[in-house]
């Protein structure tokens, strides 16, 4: 079998030279994401907002509008219905009820009574105001802790410029991911937070691989101009970056297409994360090093623990 080289043996793409385009593009993307978040907000699921979610399977499809009228007359506030995967499956969302936990239970019972016999309950979830507040708080803490943890690790393994570069790329990915949720109106729930953390992990993973090469080249070629050196580092690792993104993408796309309706939002977020994470580690994390005053002189303690600096070849 003759191996296939997807990426040319020695790609010589000029990434650093186009950094202005990347920066403008990324800045626009981030601004757009923040704008969308501010104007449209997120479609918080019941995890973070409280409320009721019921998935039912009807014996026949096409009852959506009928059910909608029936359920909206119950006096349980806003009821949203949508088909879920197939015409017979319907997802019912009922807004958080006024009056604490007990009121939520009453509403669940009302909806179930209204639906009557002959429907199959596939899923019933209800999150009270107390738990949703806690879940939200825990989610925020988890994201912040993960960012800090990752940052601390990068700081420890590289010099601070790299840590800062990585965190800029990371914030870029997280903010644009939130932006895509604001744009599409996809439900933002607990698994979205999990997806964001995974995206953070993946994006950093990609960034670290390129940074490792930058660090290696900084030791090898002490006199090479930084832009050239950074560009070479990206090109040398480009093949790997593309390969890994593709294999991950293959797995995620099959999850998105075949993994079922429940997990579709989650896999969508991950797919987006792989795209944006790959882009940011090449086009944001590395070029940004140019502006962070990377130390070219004597090796500082941050780099190369356990490795001897190699002499320039």
């Amino acid at each position, binding site marked *: 079998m003759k191996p296939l080289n997807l990426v040319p043996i020695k790609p010589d793409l000029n990434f650093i030279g186009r950094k202005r385009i990347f920066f403008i593009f990324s800045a626009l993307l981030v601004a757009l994401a923040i704008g969308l978040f501010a104007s449209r907000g997120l479609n918080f699921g019941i995890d973070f907002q409280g409320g009721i979610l019921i998935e039912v399977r009807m014996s026949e499809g096409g009852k959506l509008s009928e059910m909608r009228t029936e359920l909206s007359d119950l006096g349980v506030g806003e009821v949203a219905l949508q088909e879920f995967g197939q015409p017979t499956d319907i997802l019912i969302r009922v807004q958080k009820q006024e009056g604490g936990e007990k009121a939520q239970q009453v509403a*669940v019972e009302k909806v179930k009574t209204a639906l009557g016999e002959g429907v199959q309950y596939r899923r019933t979830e209800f999150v009270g105001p107390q738990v949703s507040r806690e879940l939200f708080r825990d989610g925020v803490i988890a994201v912040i802790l993960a960012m800090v943890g990752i940052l601390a690790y990068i700081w420890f393994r590289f010099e601070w410029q790299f840590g800062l570069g990585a965190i800029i790329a990371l914030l870029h990915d997280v903010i644009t991911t939130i932006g895509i949720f604001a744009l599409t109106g996809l439900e933002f729930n607990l698994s979205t937070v*999990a997806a964001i953390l995974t995206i953070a992990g993946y994006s950093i993973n990609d960034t670290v691989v390129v940074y490792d090469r930058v660090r290696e080249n900084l030791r090898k070629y002490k006199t090479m101009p930084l832009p050239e050196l950074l560009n070479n580092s990206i090109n040398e690792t480009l093949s*790997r970056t593309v390969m890994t993104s593709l294999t991950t993408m293959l797995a995620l796309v099959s999850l998105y297409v*075949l993994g079922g309706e429940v997990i579709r939002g989650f896999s969508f977020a991950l797919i987006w994360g792989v795209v944006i994470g790959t882009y940011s580690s090449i086009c944001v994390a590395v070029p940004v090093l140019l502006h962070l005053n990377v130390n070219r002189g004597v090796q500082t303690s941050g780099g190369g623990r356990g490795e001897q600096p190699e002499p320039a070849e």
Partner: protein
Amino acid sequence: MVYFSKWKVLFVLGVVALGLIFAAPNLFSEKVADAVPDFLPHEQVNLGLDLQGGSHLLLEVDVKSVLRERLTAVVESARAVLRRERIRYSGLGVRGDTVSVSIREAAKVENARQLILAAQQNMQLAVAGNQIILSFSEDAIKEQARAAVEQSIEIVRRRIDETGTREPTIQQQGDDRILLQLPGVDDPERVKRLLGRTAKMTFHLLDNNGSVEEARRGRVPPGAMLLPAEASSRSQGQPSHYLVRRRVAVGGDRLVDSQPSFDSQTNAPVVNFRFDTLGAKKFGDITARNVGRPFAVVLDKEVITAPVIREPILGGSGQISGNFTTQQAQELALLLRAGALPAPLTILEERTVGPGLGADSIAAGKFASIVGMVLVVIFMAISYGLFGLFADVALIANMILILAALSVLQATLTLPGIAGIVLTIGMAVDANVLVFERIREEVRAGRTPISAIDAGYSRAITTIIDANLTTLIASTILFFFGSGPIKGFAVTLTIGIITSLFTAIMLTRLLVVAWLRRKRPTELPL
């Protein structure tokens, strides 16, 4: 990097073999796996409620109500003491977390203090002028709450056991919460109904110092309380409210058994009950002294029935005939048998998945994993030829190891957990990709195959570890902060990272080295 000691070879192969053995039970149905002799592994992967179907309920014990109830009891006892000793008082009642009372005559304050203290030895007592203030210490309140939660768990367990749910998990969470996991329960309405009642049953004599009409206008005589009649009996032309004595004649905690039954004459559903010895004696005394007067059976502050005592009931057993349906009689009997909750429970969160959705999720997850895996395997083989196949072997071994680890650790596999596995399939080959790309570079730099492979592995390894540790940081944090299904995602992701490091670095390298030694190639097919 291109040398493996015999021991290392054995170790790598041994780990993979163990993985195979521990993953094997998952190939069979549950029955077959259970029939495997004990010395062989027979643990299967533990499926989360979102995959096997079931109900997850998070309950909160209203510990504040325990305190309120205790304080109310203190008020009643203080009232009794002061009346008996003919000490005049005013403003006796619960104020926040304390009980306070003003003694009319200053000279009797000290006397009252002594009397109350004797009755409430575990309380703190403060005197301010004519006012006596009683409160529980911080520790006592904590202890009460702790005991209430503990007892609630016990009662919940008994009630759930009565419903015949198999393998329920009931555990405390935080200070005042109970997590309930009921596999196989797809309509928890009955369970919720059972848990929604404290089922505190008490027998009271009716109060005859005032009238219901006056009480409804707000003039409730001291020592009495106005209680509504239970909903279903209200429609039957019975009074809607009763004025009953606060004092509990006999408490429901004296019940030893209760069974649903049918009245021998009317054939209506009833609940038969039996008191313990002390309860029987009390009940006997009271009914003997009050023949011809009505008494009330009170359940959760509602009067179920208020029959007139026709004769002393001395045997310690009796019958409650409310306006029950058969189902209501059954549930009431069950609740009385299992005992009263010390405090009301509130359902904070419910997540129920029906068996249909669970099975669909498993099928979809399996299918997606297999397709994803096949695609990655093909892609690796196309991209790296023979080396790609080595990586594919490692990928398959990785899946086996993940399955084995999940089975051995008895970690719970959830739907997001399956997503974690699929993600691992995609990312697991990353380590190999890093190495292979590095080897390609080294070959291009003019190295011989052996030296290129050696350099490829030793240079890529720091990158691999750096890259994986960052993901590991994220997944660990997810594990500690995630709840339920998300935790399942963190578990598979974490296990996947660790096993993929092993298979990619050790197993693939072993295969590459073995091949290198046999073929002694002059050129690498990379």
